[in-house]
């Protein structure tokens, strides 16, 4: 495992440095070293490589080249990498940019260059004010994320919410959308704290949540912050349910299932859902040592569909590929298909899960029990509330 990780990083370096003369060049821009890299990072690159291999390694008779680079979660770094890829490497599509600020910075540059941007940022700004004709959201946006679990919980009686929110664009957008969903469903938000990205101790906020009279704590945050919150909630014997919006199996592994048992949330992909996901996950685990997270699965689906679209369009030219991408439904690993709306948002459902008790986890990484599904349409921002200019154009 150790050696492989080391080799992988060497390979990234080599790929990023090498010249790209191939006709089909994919640029994977991601956080490869920071906190979000656990969920995507290196592992999503493996998922993309799988998609390329499954496709046969070439399209239109040309080999497929994959560039990858670390945006370091900094918008300006991300933007300059994208510019270099356009000017020097002749990139045909840019993937991921799994950070809202980086996604928002890369979007206008790629739009101007006419290059498709299949992004992994969650902010709904990228399918509203900053929607672009060649831009497609591979992950659920903050609107859908915030509704999938909130609405059923409010309806089942958890109607007084307290938010612990990471104090930047993603957290704030998620909290705002979550609060709107709660109020719409008849609940109320009784308190909010914004934590700084530097925070490591959250016990004070948990105490405040307890004092607020809330009966659910919404976690508009993720990664190591969420892990620390879960550990500390358990330490304080909190009985209030934590409601994560962005929880991956990797986070559960870090926090320990004993600290996260019995929690309900929603996720776009779960590796142990059915035979198809298990088959894919076994192949993925062979390469990466663990089952895929939802972001890994989304990158795989998106890249596979992109390559099919290039073949269908007979060219890598952005507009034509984009047209083909949107014209055919995207196959989901779990079975069934999704389609892309004018604003670039994929119309897809989410799975409602409950985390297992430690003694129920009989297979490694099998932390979730799927207990329901949030219907795709209920997660989609209604067209009349959207600020995307592309509606009605085509």
């Amino acid at each position, binding site marked *: 495992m150790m050696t492989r990780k*080391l080799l992988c990083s060497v390979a990234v370096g080599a790929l990023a440095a090498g010249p790209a003369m191939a006709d089909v060049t994919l640029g994977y821009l991601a956080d490869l070293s920071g906190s979000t890299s656990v969920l995507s990072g290196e592992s999503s690159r493996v998922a993309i490589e799988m998609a390329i291999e499954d496709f046969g390694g070439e399209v239109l008779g040309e080999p497929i080249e994959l560039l990858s680079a670390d945006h370091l979660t900094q918008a300006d770094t991300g933007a300059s990498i994208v510019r270099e890829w356009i000017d020097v490497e002749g990139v045909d599509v840019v993937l991921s940019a799994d950070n809202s600020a980086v996604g928002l910075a890369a979007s206008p540059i790629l739009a101007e260059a006419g290059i498709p941007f299949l992004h992994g940022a969650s902010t709904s700004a990228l399918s509203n004010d900053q929607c672009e004709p060649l831009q497609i959201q591979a992950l659920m946006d903050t609107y859908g994320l915030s509704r999938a679990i909130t609405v059923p919980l409010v309806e089942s009686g958890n109607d007084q919410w307290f938010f612990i929110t990471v104090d930047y664009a993603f957290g704030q957008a998620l909290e705002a959308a979550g609060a709107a969903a709660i109020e719409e469903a008849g609940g109320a938000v009784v308190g909010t704290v914004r934590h700084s990205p530097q925070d*490591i101790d959250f016990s*004070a906020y948990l105490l*405040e949540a307890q004092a607020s009279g809330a009966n659910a704590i919404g976690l508009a945050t993720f990664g*190591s912050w969420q*892990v620390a919150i879960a*550990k*500390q909630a358990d330490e304080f014997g909190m009985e209030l349910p934590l409601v994560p919006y962005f929880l991956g199996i990797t986070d559960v592994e870090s*926090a*320990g299932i004993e600290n996260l048992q019995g929690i309900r949330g929603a996720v776009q992909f779960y590796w142990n859902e059915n035979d198809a996901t298990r088959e894919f996950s076994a192949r993925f685990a062979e390469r990466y040592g663990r089952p895929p997270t939802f972001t890994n699965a989304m990158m795989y689906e998106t890249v596979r569909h992109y390559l099919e679209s290039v073949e269908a369009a007979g060219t890598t030219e952005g507009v034509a590929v984009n047209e083909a991408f949107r014209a055919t439904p995207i196959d989901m690993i779990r079975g069934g298909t999704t389609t892309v709306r004018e604003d670039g948002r994929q119309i897809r459902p989410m799975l409602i899960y409950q985390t297992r008790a430690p003694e129920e986890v009989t297979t490694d990484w099998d932390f979730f029990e799927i207990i329901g599904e949030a219907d795709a349409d209920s997660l989609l921002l209604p067209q009349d509330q959207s600020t995307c200019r592309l509606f009605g154009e085509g």
Partner: protein
Amino acid sequence: MFDINVNLILGQMVLGMVNGVFYAILSLGVAIIFGLLGVINFAHGVFFMLGAFVAYGLLQFFGLGYWPALILVPMIVGALGIVLEVLLIRHLYRLEHLYGLLLTLGMALAIEGFVRIVFGPQGLPYSMPDNLRGAVNLGFMFLPYYRAWVVVAGVILCFATWYVIEQTPLGAKLRAATDNPKLVQAFGINVPVMLTLTYGAGVALAGFAGVMAAPILSVDPSMGTNIVIIAFAVVVIGGMGSILGAILTGFGLGILEGFTKAIYSEASSTVIFVVMVIVLVTRPRGLFGKVG
């Protein structure tokens, strides 16, 4: 915005005290190393992180739990510190402080990067010792036994360290050796060894704090990055090189931070730095810094 709830404020201040323990132990190490060696040890946060990772390693590979880790980890981390002092840091004692800062910053980035390559950026699980699970009702809050233990152990450790340095013959030699190494050497004391051991002891403190943090914080390669900045602010506020200043300021700022969380949480991550600015402007030597 300004909600006043006495129970909440008291609770937050108690929790702040717990964080204050971590600030105090880390700042204490920074203050000792600066005070006695003149090195601004930017690698301190990394030794804190290594403390937690070594504790994880002992559990994972040798089945040694929390209590043995509390003894073994400071020794292992301290030994690593000694190796680095001998190989790298001691060559810079004659130069300005800035060089030591640059070297230790480089060491910190390299070690953190190495840990990230080996373990990945993902957090590692570390469970709480079973005999410290549960909580005590203080009337205004439930205080987990573990946090109470952190406070007790931290206070004892801090004051024991202070006592050794300020009140014992060994401490007196140490202080003399930093003031005038040549003279102390002339008395037959091996000053370089003494300084090496001091560095080892300083980082061992960070390792100890790392073990104490492992059950309650996220154990990941960057866990020391932010806390070391606070430790430096504490040392600056307390007075560079002042041992007692570092301890008292660590506790005090932890409590102040907790209080701010209760009143206006958005300001809690900056309040320490606001205090630092005020202290630097009005009393540049720090609250407990010696005049001279």
